[in-house]
């Protein structure tokens, strides 16, 4: 168990491509941090630098009190779970889980005891003598987890460990992993491109885009007060509505349509962000939306339409049998996020 500190960590690949721009953050002991971002944004690169599988081009990495920039992966006191599980196909589950311990010259009885402990925790007792090829995807995932926990590491690293599982199993494993991490109290860094996973599992989320950290915060923070338009559109499904707007004389408008905000300190062009669920149908509302399409999602219905020529979506309950056509709506309090129209950064 340990605190992890990254300062100005940078990755430049040998071909000159900068995959991670200088990034700094701390992970307190026992925290579950999720690195999330679109494909190719540098999440894996970041994780692999922490693991020691990729050289750190610049910056300092500390795990616990130790600077580990040049420490071998095996000696960083970490354990990693890979997307494709990376189980040794020729070894039984027992051997797979115990291999790391065996290499550390721990004696046989001790290994056996630890493997049993882990397998019991993960419900793998009946499978100890099977080969990975004789297991289901979920079971393989558990073996990979087992391999990580027997080593009693200071830090867990996960690289999209659930993306090969079907939706239902993914939900289940999500909870299992989180519960296990809680129970063991081990610091964890978890990489995913799935924002639902990020929201549900994280103590803190780090949103990355194109090699840069866009925002670090609790799931609630990141969801409610996105720092950039990128975070606003990446987190949440359906994503936040982003519309070009304008502030003049302290009044906010989308096209000619006024939005119920007065006395704003800014002026000029802005990007307006509103979560689809923060817009409520309201006969006395002062905003009119032209609904053109209704999407049925079971528990919810998603209304797609336009406001002043710009696309907008509204999230309503399944009982709200609204149809296409003009719809009057109002906004929940504090529903509007404002971003700089050019930089995309949040305006206070």
């Amino acid at each position, binding site marked *: 168990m340990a605190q992890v500190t990254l300062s100005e960590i940078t990755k430049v690949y040998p071909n000159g491509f900068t995959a991670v721009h200088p990034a700094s953050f701390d992970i307190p002991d026992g925290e579950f941090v999720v690195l999330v971002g679109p494909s190719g944004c540098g999440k894996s690169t970041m994780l692999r630098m922490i693991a020691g*599988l990729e050289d750190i081009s610049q910056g300092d990495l500390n795990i616990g009190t130790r600077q580990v920039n040049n420490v071998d992966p095996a000696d960083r006191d970490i354990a990693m779970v*890979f997307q494709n599980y*990376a189980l040794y*196909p020729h070894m039984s589950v027992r051997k797979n889980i115990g291999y*790391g311990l065996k290499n550390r010259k721990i004696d046989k009885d001790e290994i056996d005891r630890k493997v049993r402990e882990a397998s019991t925790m993960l419900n793998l007792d009946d499978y100890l003598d099977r080969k990975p090829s004789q297991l289901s995807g979920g079971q393989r995932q558990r073996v990979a987890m087992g391999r990580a926990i027997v080593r009693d590491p200071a830090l867990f690293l996960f690289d999209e460990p659930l993306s090969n599982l079907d939706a239902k199993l993914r939900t289940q494993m999500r909870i299992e992993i989180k519960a296990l991490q809680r129970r063991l109290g081990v610091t964890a860094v978890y990489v995913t491109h799935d924002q639902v996973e990020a929201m549900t599992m994280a103590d803190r989320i780090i949103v990355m885009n194109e090699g840069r950290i866009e925002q670090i915060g609790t799931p609630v923070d990141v969801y409610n007060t996105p720092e950039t338009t990128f975070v606003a559109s990446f987190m949440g499904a359906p994503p936040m509505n982003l519309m070009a707007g304008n502030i003049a004389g302290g009044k906010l408008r989308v096209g000619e349509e006024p939005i119920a905000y007065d006395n704003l300190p800014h002026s000029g062009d802005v990007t307006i962000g509103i979560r689809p669920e923060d817009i409520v149908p309201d006969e006395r509302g002062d905003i009119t939306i032209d609904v053109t399409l209704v999407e049925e999602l079971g528990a919810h219905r998603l209304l797609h339409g336009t406001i002043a020529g710009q696309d907008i979506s509204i999230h309503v309950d399944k009982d709200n049998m609204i149809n296409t056509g003009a719809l009057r709506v109002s906004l929940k309090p504090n529903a509007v996020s404002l971003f700089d129209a050019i930089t995309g950064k949040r305006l206070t």
Partner: protein
Amino acid sequence: MKSEIKTYTRPQIKLLLIFDHGVLILGAAFMILPVLMLLQMTTMPDLFNMKTGPSLAIGDQLDDNFRKAMFEADGFSGANTGVRMLWNSMILGLGFAAGKIVLGMMAAYAIVYFRMRFATFAFWIIFTTLLLPLEVRILPSYEIVQHLGMLNTYQGLIIPLIASATATFFFRQYFRSIPEELIEAARIDGAGPFKFFVDILVPLSQTMIAAMFIIMFVYGWNQYLWPTMITTDEDMFTLVRGIKQITQSLEGTSLPEYGRANMLALVAILPPVLIVIFFQSWFVKGLTESDK
């Protein structure tokens, strides 16, 4: 309305099947004919063979020829019995295959997993040696072996042959197909280069090793030119090389011992055939499947 499903047995398909099998059987018969001829001649007295050549007659000399082939020698020292030559061939085949596999795996391991400068270049250099088979460099090779005092030794027979571009190539391709994550997992599990090789790579390559073993064993077993040059002591003769010796002894009053030579030829065919038959499934698996 009732729909009727009629099932036809299609005669065309059956005909095609018969035709296919006919072709296959014919091919097989064609391939096996020389072997049958050999077998027939081992049952006949040498004089008959000399006069008539192959025929349809089955004689009674099989056991006699077998005894002569396996336990009698024709040289001065009396050392080159069939059993001895079989033994030598076995050592050559096994040593040749094992050496090529060990060397090829290690070379491929170095090329694939270590960040060396010129690794690709080194690989292509190794690869181009395919264009320089032993026959091209046989004189210098012979000279070196002679200087090292390895004439008429098993080392001399095997070592100059085991550097293998083919094995290196196959293992390289195979290693490259092993997922990167597996290697990384092993690194995190604290497996150093040696442990990774022994604990992970070798077991994973089992089927590949088996396939290589078959190919290389047969290849080594059938070596002719090199053993002929390197072995002059009769107790070092291999089967393939020794057979020639027998049919050659035309001088004097003795007849060439066709029966015995043919018997030896049959004996020489057997081990490779058995190996291929028994390891066939491995062979196919090794070259086509990858269970990672």
